[in-house]
């Protein structure tokens, strides 16, 4: 093992050299001779064997005869011999007086054993080295045990788990590398210290009880505990504790293997926290959803009439509103189907369609007339939503309704009113058509039947004049002329009246009218009956207009005809026909320098059969201007006039540029 270099080599005497020792030497020799467990022999300075005891024979396998005189090199391995180990050992012994070492030695049979060898230098009386006493022990078993222990120890050292042991007094005995890493203490720091104080295990009472019990009963326990590392850091560990007892059953040592499970714990904690979060989240979501749901249900119950039926239509639930409107109590409704409120109003087809829709998983919407317990009817705007099971089949229906009875009543009333109104319109229209027909028939009669007698009057007056004129004096002829002229006047009156009434009934034919051409046509036509060659007639360029050309012809005929008529007594009659454009209308005008009229009677100017001049002054029927006003009004325009007695008159009419003849009958 180690060189004892600091020890002064003791001086031993060779046996037999001193008489004093001889005796004792003899006894000693015998003793040595018989020692069996130790090979004790003496070699000379060169290592040649001089003596050989029983133990040597026993250990090395050689007999004294065989071995005496041989060199000790025979006991060494080939390798040691080549390295000069035998010589080295002897030299060391010579140098220090004593040299002890261990090493592999070879038996006679070639087998090897682990030997503990002690060389002791021997000197003669003169102090000269005479040889060495050599004591060899076979400690192979011990060596192997030591090796095994070392192996285990190295295993312990490389283990990732903390491995430590402590004795019955809780004093730490061992502390491996991993323990150093995990707990932060070096072995040197903790060996012999109290284990509990060092790692301060944290465990609840149950665990502690269980640990003691099991360790006592079974000598073994394992479980999770928390240890405290340096600086108070808590380390969760999985610990296995085993008890070592001696042969007397007394506790010798506790061996602990601790696995650091902080990472695992952290993972677990993380997982736990995540789960917790998730749970919290789920819970809060669920709570929120449930609250939402409750809110919706509340809102729905408050706002609507709600009923839930199973797939067969049997009522499972009704809310307050349902009970209220139907007049039935909840008890009366639950378990019944909706026929309880059936009004019989809807067709079978209608109800069948409803069922086909919802049984097919579709939402049905519609208006239903139901009958309350009182027998009163009520209308509900209804939405029926099927709730579907996993197979997509409805397992219940929720019907949400809104009371629309008053709306329906209003609608029905409105409908009734509409119907009545329509009926009235039809009646009125018929009446109107009837009176139109009557008017038509009337004007037909007027035109045909009233004109014929007039013709007869004038005709027979003429015949009278022709056939019997020679029997009449001047007065007679004058009276005859009166008859004829009155008849003619009456004829014109009838014609004008007919024209006037016909205009009210005729559909206007819309078109673009060239006003200049129309005015020229009118003047030519007027020239056939009136003589106004000496008139000055100025016609400005006139913008076109939109309307019924025949009606506008009537307008121009009347206005120009009037101008001619009322200026006929002037020495130099002048008529001016003009047009002025505004942004959205054209104003046409006919001006004359005739007798004019008093604006005081303006209100009568456009009235039917209204005249501001006597028939003696100017012939006329009083229809012309009324006709003008009717036509212009029906074209959406307006008509007016300006005059002073004796200073001529100007008649204006305006037509909108966007004019469309309106068909309403005036």
């Amino acid at each position: 093992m180690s060189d004892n270099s600091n020890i002064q080599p003791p001086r031993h005497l060779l046996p037999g050299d001193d008489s004093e020792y001889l005796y004792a030497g003899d006894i000693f020799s015998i003793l040595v001779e018989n020692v069996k467990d130790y090979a004790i022999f003496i070699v000379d300075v060169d290592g040649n064997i001089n003596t050989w005891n029983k133990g040597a024979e026993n250990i090395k396998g050689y007999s004294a005869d065989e071995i005496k005189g041989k060199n000790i090199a025979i006991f060494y391995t080939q390798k040691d011999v080549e390295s000069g180990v035998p010589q080295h050992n002897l030299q060391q012994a010579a140098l220090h007086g004593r040299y002890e070492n261990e090493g592999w030695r070879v038996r006679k049979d070639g087998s090897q054993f682990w030997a503990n060898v002690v060389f002791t230098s021997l000197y003669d009386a003169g102090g000269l080295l005479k040889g060495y006493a050599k004591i060899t022990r076979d400690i192979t078993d011990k060596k192997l045990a030591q090796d095994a222990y070392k192996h285990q120890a190295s295993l312990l050292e490389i283990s990732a788990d903390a491995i430590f042991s402590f004795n019955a007094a809780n004093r730490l005995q061992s502390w491996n590398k991993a323990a150093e890493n995990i707990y932060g203490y070096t072995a040197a720091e903790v060996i012999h210290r109290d284990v509990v104080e060092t790692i301060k295990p944290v465990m609840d009472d149950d665990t502690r009880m269980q640990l003691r019990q099991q360790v006592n009963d079974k000598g073994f326990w394992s479980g999770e505990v928390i240890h405290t590392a340096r600086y108070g850091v808590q380390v969760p560990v999985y610990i296995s504790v085993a008890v070592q007892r001696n042969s007397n059953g007394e506790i010798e040592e506790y061996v602990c293997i601790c696995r650091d499970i902080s990472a695992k714990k952290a993972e677990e904690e993380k997982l736990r926290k995540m789960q917790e979060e998730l749970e919290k989240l789920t819970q809060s979501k669920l709570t929120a959803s449930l609250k939402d749901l409750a809110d919706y249900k509340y809102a729905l119950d408050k706002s609507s009439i709600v009923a839930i039926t199973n797939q067969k239509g049997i009522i499972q639930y009704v809310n307050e509103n349902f009970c209220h409107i139907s007049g039935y109590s909840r008890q009366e409704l639950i378990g019944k189907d909706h026929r309880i409120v059936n009004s019989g109003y809807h067709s079978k087809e209608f109800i069948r369609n409803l069922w086909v829709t919802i049984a097919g998983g579709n939402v049905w919407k519609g208006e239903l007339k139901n009958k309350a317990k009182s027998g009163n009817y009520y209308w509900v705007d209804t939405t029926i939503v099927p709730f579907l099971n996993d197979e997509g089949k409805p397992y219940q229906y929720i019907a949400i309704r809104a009371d629309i009875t008053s709306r329906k009543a209003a609608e029905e009333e409105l409908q009734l009113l509409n119907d009545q109104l329509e009926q009235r319109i039809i009646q009125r229209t018929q009446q109107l058509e009837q009176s139109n027909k009557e008017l038509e028939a009337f004007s037909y009669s007027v035109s045909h039947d009233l004109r014929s007698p007039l013709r007869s009057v004038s005709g027979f007056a003429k015949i009278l004049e022709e056939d019997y004129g020679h029997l009449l004096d001047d007065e007679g002829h004058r009276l005859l002329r009166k008859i004829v002229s009155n008849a003619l006047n009456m004829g014109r009156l009838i014609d004008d009246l007919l024209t006037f009434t016909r205009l009210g009934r005729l559909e206007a034919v819309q078109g673009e009218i060239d006003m200049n051409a129309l005015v020229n046509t009118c003047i030519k036509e007027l020239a056939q009956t009136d003589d106004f060659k000496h008139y000055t007639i100025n016609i400005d360029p006139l913008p076109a207009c939109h309307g019924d050309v025949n009606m506008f012809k009537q307008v121009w005929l009347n206005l120009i005809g009037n101008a001619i008529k009322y200026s006929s007594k002037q020495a130099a009659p002048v008529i001016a026909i003009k047009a002025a454009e505004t942004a959205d209308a054209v104003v046409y005008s006919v001006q004359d320098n005739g007798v004019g009229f008093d604006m005081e009677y303006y209100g009568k100017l456009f009235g039917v059969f209204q005249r501001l001049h006597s028939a003696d002054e100017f012939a006329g029927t009083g229809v012309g201007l009324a006709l003008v006003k009717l036509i212009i009004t029906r074209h959406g325009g307006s008509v007016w006039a300006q005059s002073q007695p004796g200073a001529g008159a100007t008649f204006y009419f305006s037509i909108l540029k966007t004019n469309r003849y309106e068909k309403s009958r005036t």
Partner: protein
Amino acid sequence: MKNHALDILLVEDNPDDAELTIRSLRKVNMANKLVHVKDGAEALELLFGKEGDAPGTERQLPKVILLDIKMPKVDGIEVLRRIKSAEETRSIPVVIMTSSKEQQDMINSYNLGVNSYVVKPVEFNNFAKAVSDLGMYWLLVNETPY
């Protein structure tokens, strides 16, 4: 050319108008071969014969028909329709002479193929002139295929 025993068929229910018309025509010597019937039914009888007539009975067709519209029994429009839809009478000129200025009557008449439409003037001179002009035109001026 057929020999017409009849020049003018006057269909007029109003005796005064008829008298005035005939007088006007006579003045221009046009009333010699004139027949006056008092309504549409008589006119149709004269033109198409009546039930019980022997087949092939000779009927006198006028050169021109002066037709009033408003008449009892069958009115002038119906007579016109019958005249213009029958093969043998279609080509006879028909002049509607009416007091009516009713536009619908005029439209119907022209649609049915009337040859002239005259509104009887109230003033007798004009009336007389219109009638005589008509007679002159249809009897003397106008050429017919027969």
